[in-house]
């Protein structure tokens, strides 16, 4: 079992003929993901390797029955691409693009409220159900199929670090999701925690947060009230100075809000097992989940 994506997920790649799009599409296909179509306006009829390319997402859906989109479109055009995917009736939209203007994402987010679509990202590594489908840019081999742990994170390479440590401990993953490092993201920690809680194969979750915003505090409330499976938490940015954007657009301490310390305290108060030393996270998880 898994959440949001599995071997049956049929993926169309928006921006498939670009450098990034081509590179990562090939890796997804190698991993076994069903990449069945691509979209690049003006390039209908071409193929990227064996994948047929269409002008619009709707054309791709009509011809192939895709139910999920993976987006590599540049930031200036990404909001448009996401809304196009939602209008074509896709169930899942995974947005890798980094650097989309905040106001664009705010409009997209409000537009999507009325649609039966789940967006993951933007500015994220994507989603992987190990052994079944990789819809994103994460390195496949570090993952271990079969569960029983779910991973949800605001980061990219930090997630790889966490997954790698789990795998080294012999702990497999059901699904790993990067929800993205931007202030406005399609899926929240809560959305993913709720799905993991309902997934019969997931016996525990590792949640990787960082400074900025209140997503971790909100998730803590949810964990205290709605979760029965154990949650391990980690927060990066204990040493981050206030007022500075730490790489991610969303990772900024403003005034007294968004600090790592406040998040760690909220998580601990909600029964989350907080690991404060990334170097020992794998062993920490092995203890909690055994």
């Amino acid at each position, binding site marked *: 079992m898994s959440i949001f994506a599995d071997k049956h997920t049929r993926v169309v790649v928006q921006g498939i003929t670009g450098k990034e799009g081509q590179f990562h599409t090939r890796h997804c296909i190698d991993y076994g993901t069903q990449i069945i179509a691509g979209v690049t306006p003006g390039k209908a009829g071409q193929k990227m390797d064996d994948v047929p390319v269409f002008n619009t997402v709707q054309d791709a859906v009509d011809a192939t029955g895709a139910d999920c989109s993976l987006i590599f479109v540049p930031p200036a055009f990404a909001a448009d691409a996401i809304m196009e995917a939602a209008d074509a009736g896709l169930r899942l939209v995974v947005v890798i693009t980094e650097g*989309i*203007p905040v106001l664009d994402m705010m409009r997209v987010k*409000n537009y999507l409220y009325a649609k039966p679509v789940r967006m993951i990202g933007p500015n994220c590594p994507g989603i992987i159900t190990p052994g079944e489908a990789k819809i994103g840019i994460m*390195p496949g081999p570090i993952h271990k199929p079969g569960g029983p742990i779910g991973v949800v994170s605001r980061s990219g390479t930090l997630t790889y670090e966490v997954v790698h440590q789990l795998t080294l401990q012999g702990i497999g993953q059901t699904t790993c999701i990067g929800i993205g490092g931007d202030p406005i993201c399609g899926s929240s920690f809560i959305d993913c925690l709720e799905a993991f809680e309902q997934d019969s194969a997931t016996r525990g979750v590792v949640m990787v947060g960082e*400074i900025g*915003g209140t997503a971790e505090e909100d998730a803590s409330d949810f964990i205290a009230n709605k979760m029965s499976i154990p949650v391990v938490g*980690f927060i990066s*940015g204990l040493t981050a100075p206030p007022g500075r954007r730490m*790489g991610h657009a969303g990772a900024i301490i403003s005034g007294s809000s968004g600090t790592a310390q406040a998040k760690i305290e909220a998580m601990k108060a909600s029964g989350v097992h907080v690991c404060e030393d*990334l170097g020992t996270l794998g062993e920490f998880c092995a203890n909690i989940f055994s």
Partner: protein
Amino acid sequence: MKIHEYQAKELFNKYAVPVPKGGIAFTAAEAVGVAKKLGGYPVVVKAQIHAGGRGKGGGVKLAGAADEVGRVAQEIIGMNLVTHQTGAGGRLVKKVLVEQGLNIAKELYVSIIPDRSTAQIVIMASEAGGMDIEAVAAETPEKIIKVPINPLLGLQSYHCRAVAFGLNLNPVVMKPFVAMLKNLYRLFVGADCSLLEINPLVITAEETVMALDAKVNFDDNALFRHPDIQEYRDLDEEDPLEVEASKFNLNYINLDGNVGNMVNGAGLAMATMDIIKQAGAEPANFLDVGGGASAEMVENGFRIILSDPNVKGILINIFGGILRCDVLANGVVEAAKKTGIKVPVVVRMEGTNVEEGRKILAESGLNLITAADLRDAAQKIAEVVQ
């Protein structure tokens, strides 16, 4: 991106948000010239730096006559202004804004910010103007009005009424206030602001509305579509190493410690800084070389880290995904040869092609310390800088 108050007021003018008459001056003589054109005294002389709390630090002064303007401007220009936002080092003042003095009847607070958790644009307002708004929010939250606006719908008249009635404005002021609020919103959306704050917004004795202060920040991700706003960037207000790093698309922030570090990915970079501190040392910087870093970027990263004289050792932590470890290793070797690294370097690599990467480092003949894992890396770097 941040801009100066005088630049924010220029934008306010463009969007018909009323501001006091004034002008910018780089010398005391220029300040006197600006004051003479304002048509009366007193005038206010305000230091222009990218930090709040200027008044308390002695960077804002009233002048009752031309010679006093000259004297006050002379004091402020060239001073090292220390406020709670500049840090202990302070900031060198290079220019002042000279403005007409106003007859202030009431001071209000107004700001527009994006609310990330609800994806709404929020107008915040308070009758407790001129004060530290965070303190007001903490101590007397009932004094703050918050009106959320759906960005798809935009600002409606009822939103404006909610703010105006909440501020207990008198009927004469209501109309110009609402007009100003609509223009502020237009500016917020039109220029992709990430913060727009007026503290204080004043009601004058003549019952006009006037932005006495102006703070505007912009969404860096949206600057590509605002070339006019990019021109407001003032490199004097930024750390020179950070400016240098931005030329190479490197995400670098200079900090106070002595352990330089280079990491791929922002989250892992923050976590690496944390683990350096947990091992008993202090990070000298944040540096995210990104997922697709090239050998050239690694080299530039090294150069920038090493131009910080406090750096006594460097920790490289790379989790190879898109950026393969062999590519990184070659970059490190090249950079080490070209820049002649004089401090110890600890390398921790994991992920794609890690064996080839380790081999390249081992055979390079360079004095690199390799670490087995993160914990090992942090301990080793902490030892070598002590």
